[in-house]
């Protein structure tokens, strides 16, 4: 009998695969179950946002910004508004800043709930996903009450907010926060501490610090590798320096630092930290105040003004580079998408793992294709 002939197989995962979180295509080179190379093929959701923004007025860009990362629309709107306001040099009323922080943190919780839930789904547990979606609905209710929309809010505008908070909103927000800790405990019971889940995620897809930094990985993925980098802490924007909270980092509690479980756990802890921030912001929220700063009707940043503004999105550092030529239409809007940098590290960390693990790692990176392709 001659030697058994084996060869590597190219496996095309996606763009219609159930676990690629959208329309991502992965080209896997596999040897049986072991994956030796992963090549993400992106662009299936490309809407040419950046080119589009060059033909729109500054305010008109903001609804399109929402659509980039459609599960963290509030954060994106906030990031864009901050960038343009810095160009214009606008000072905002404190009530606006507090409401913005509250909205951004609620959106962070909602986004992390999806991340946690779909991660459970990738690992095979269906029920945690439904539990996560249940709490997310409550947050969306709050958003709907405030802005009138459930997914793409366009609530945070340049120079303020679309509307003031409605009556009774603050009480409802407190109500949600009171119950939220209990629900996080539920996720811990059904998923975080589950032995099967730990076996599937601990020590899987370890993202070493050097690799993370080389690829520009940010957000919970970088913090999962043990680096306490958070734009909210390191370069505080808005009112983040007024609250007390800590940056959760991966400690390798179940395996080694930077594994999928750590990235997952950072998200769980961040949800609790966000809840803490919201509670403080609600306590400090001025009862009265204008929600719109005095801004010119036509937004015309000075000629030649350019800015790179950093923002901590649920997925990492969201940056906006905007250049003005003095008209009311920007000459260039560049979006530094955190998920794009995060997914680029996929090949590096999933080599040598099994096909199931590639899905776990992809889930733990928490990508949004709308933001990667823009």
């Amino acid at each position: 009998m001659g030697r058994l002939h084996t060869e590597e197989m190219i496996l095309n995962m996606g763009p219609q695969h159930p676990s690629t979180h959208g329309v991502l295509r992965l080209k896997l080179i596999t040897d049986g179950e072991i994956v030796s190379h992963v090549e993400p093929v992106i662009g299936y959701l490309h809407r040419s946002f950046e080119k589009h923004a060059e033909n729109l007025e500054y305010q008109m860009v903001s609804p399109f910004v929402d659509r980039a990362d459609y599960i963290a629309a509030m954060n994106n709107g906030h990031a864009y508004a901050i960038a343009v306001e810095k160009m214009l040099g606008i000072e905002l009323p404190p009530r606006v800043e507090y409401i913005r922080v509250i909205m951004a943190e609620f959106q962070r919780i909602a986004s992390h709930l999806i991340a946690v839930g779909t991660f459970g789904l990738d690992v095979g547990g269906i029920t945690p996903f439904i539990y996560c979606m249940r709490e997310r609905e409550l947050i969306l209710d709050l958003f709907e009450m405030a802005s009138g929309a459930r997914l793409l809010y366009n609530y945070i505008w340049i120079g303020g907010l679309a509307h003031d908070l409605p009556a009774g909103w603050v009480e409802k927000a407190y109500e949600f926060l009171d119950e939220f800790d209990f629900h996080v405990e539920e996720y811990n019971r059904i998923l975080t501490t589950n032995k099967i889940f730990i076996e599937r995620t601990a020590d899987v897809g370890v993202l070493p610090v050097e690799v993370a930094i080389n690829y520009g990985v940010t957000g919970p993925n970088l913090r999962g590798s043990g680096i306490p980098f958070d734009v909210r802490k390191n370069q505080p924007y808005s009112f983040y320096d007024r609250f007390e909270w800590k940056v959760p980092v991966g400690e390798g509690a179940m395996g080694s630092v930077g594994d999928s479980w750590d990235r997952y756990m950072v998200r769980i802890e961040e949800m609790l930290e966000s809840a803490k921030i919201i509670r403080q912001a609600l306590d400090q929220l001025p009862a009265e105040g204008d929600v719109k700063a005095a801004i010119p009707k036509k937004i015309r940043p000075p000629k030649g003004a350019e800015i790179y503004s950093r923002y901590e999105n649920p997925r990492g550092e969201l940056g906006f580079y905007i250049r003005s030529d003095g008209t009311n239409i920007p000459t260039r809007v560049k979006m530094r998408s955190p998920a794009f940098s995060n997914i680029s590290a996929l090949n590096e960390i999933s080599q040598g793992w099994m096909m199931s693990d590639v899905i776990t790692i992809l889930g733990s990176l928490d990508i949004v294709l709308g933001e990667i392709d823009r």
Partner: protein
Amino acid sequence: MNYFKNIYIAISTLMTGMKLTLGYFVRPREYVTLQYPDEVWPIPERNIGTGELASYNVIRSKLHVDIDDCIGCKKCERACPVGCISIDVLKGDKGEDLGVTKNGTSIKLVVTKHQIDMSECMFCDLCTHPCPEDCIYMEADYRFERNDNKRKDVTVKERWRDRSTLIYDFAKIAQEDVDARTAKIEEENRLKAEEKEKAMAEKLAAAAAKQTAKADAEQTQNVKADVETTLFKTTEGGES
């Protein structure tokens, strides 16, 4: 020992999860799903404080225009990032009273077309804020679905592509009125254009005569043809 500890941890943590799901299975609890068309999620009351318009304080689902208050300023059309609003206006007659809006502004223009294509709208709410008369706003009516499965005049695919029911036209003005006004304005325009054309033709003819005189005998034919084309083009441009 680690081996047995592992097994113990596995069993105990799995039991924890099972306890949770069983708890939800047996415990009386409000289910979060709804039987959609029968029960609907309550639309939150959004009293945002502006207060004048009752229907303004609701969620963003469908654009509505109070056409009586519209002054045809086209600010909403310009604010729309996707261009789903299209407005046509005509000048009113001299001395004609077109009424006043609820804010007291007298209307100067006749809005002949105020069309909103809800299939293109992205519900960004940018058009409602610039409106000086607060006459364009979002309504809470989110049920755009329609049952036209029994329509036989079009094929299924055409029916799916058909979005004409999502295009809302708010202009109330009658077609005859529009036609009459358009005819009037066109007549004025035509008279003006004719005068202009006449002057232009004279000018061109003069130029042509000048050129003909200058040209050689062999090239006379070509030059003539050239002039004719120019003339033809001019008249065509004038008509369009």
